[in-house]
């Protein structure tokens, strides 16, 4: 059985089923013309990759990153709706993830550039640097190179202000009590995820899902957040 060009391309792309792949492999090895076609396919693939590579290396234009940053307060409506539905949702065990897509998009654009950092974290509370970010940073106006990004702010059932954050070393949720920023839930930071770009944002996604569970109401708007900061998050 002869090999069509479609099959040959599928062979070069690793798309043939195993049985047919072996048959085609045998024919390619026996026929220099077929082998040359497979080589041409691979060479073209490399050439295309080289051609488009500079786009990935080029900085993402500000207007695209701004789009993601300024849209941060947008989950408000769905956040409130999600809160209302959360018991029903638990029963159905199907979390609505859509509103998490914003931060995930941000991650997929490699928007957030985090720098590695160490430091002692007191038992159960945010360390100095994290606490400072939690105190100062507003979702709507975060420095581009911030080590920690605040994902959103909300109040929990005790009326405390809580903030979901994502950083290089650590991601999680912290709520402000009299002692400081008590860590509620923490996960691995972005550095643990670098090996697989498709995982980028997944951790932020689970953090946001937990925020949804903890929250007593909608996420704070930019104005509410700024007001809360004025009041020292009390």
């Amino acid at each position, binding site marked *: 059985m002869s090999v069509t*060009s*479609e099959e040959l*391309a*599928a062979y070069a*792309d690793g*798309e043939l089923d195993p049985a047919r792949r072996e048959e085609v492999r045998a024919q390619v090895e026996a026929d220099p*013309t077929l082998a*040359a*076609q497979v*080589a*041409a*396919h691979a*060479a*073209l*693939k490399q*050439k*295309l*990759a*080289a*051609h*488009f*590579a*500079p*786009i*990935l290396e*080029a900085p*993402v*234009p500000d*207007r*695209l990153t701004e*789009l*993601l940053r300024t*849209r941060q307060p*947008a989950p408000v409506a*769905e956040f409130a709706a999600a809160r209302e539905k959360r018991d029903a949702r638990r029963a159905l065990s*199907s*979390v*609505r*993830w*859509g*509103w*998490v*897509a*914003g931060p*995930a*998009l941000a991650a*997929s*654009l490699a928007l957030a550039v985090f720098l590695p950092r160490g430091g002692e974290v007191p038992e159960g509370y945010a360390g100095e640097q994290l606490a400072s970010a939690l105190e100062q940073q507003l979702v709507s106006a975060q420095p581009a190179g911030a080590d920690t990004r605040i994902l959103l702010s909300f109040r929990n059932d005790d009326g405390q202000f809580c903030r979901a954050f994502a950083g290089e070393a650590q991601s999680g949720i912290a709520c402000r009590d009299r002692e400081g920023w008590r860590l509620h839930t923490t996960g691995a930071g972005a550095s643990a995820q670098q090996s697989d770009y*498709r995982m980028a*944002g997944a951790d932020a996604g689970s953090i946001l899902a937990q925020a949804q569970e903890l929250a007593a109401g909608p996420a704070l708007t930019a104005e509410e957040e700024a007001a809360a900061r004025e009041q020292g998050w009390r």
Partner: protein
Amino acid sequence: MRRFAIGLSRSAADGDDLCQATIERALVNRGKWQEGTRLDSWMYTMMRNIWIDEQRARNRRGQTFVAEEGGLSVGAEGAQESAVELGNVGRAMARLPDEQREAVLLVMVEGYAYKEAAEIIGCPVGTLNSRLVRGRDALLELLGEAP
């Protein structure tokens, strides 16, 4: 995203406009994204639809594509020889029919499996496969590298 957008639209400026429109639409429609499905495939499908709509609108307005003749200028800052080479690839890509170019982009540049690429385009896998082959053969021909 930018790579696919710029490849699809054949120009960096159009590509970034396309990215912007796609992100805006994705944020508006984020409730429709299903957990467990790939976010990138979902976005690419949306991007492709936006681009098709935009092309129809432009055709109605009688506009031509600025980038069509010149091809892509990405990567043109390297050594003289490689710049020419990269320019050739861009021009060759720009001359492909849209359906072949998107098949080549999704499989050979973005690295999607045939099945995933076919889902993004919304065509059968066999159709994707034959468009890819025709696009690839045309590229090899244009680049003077047909075996």
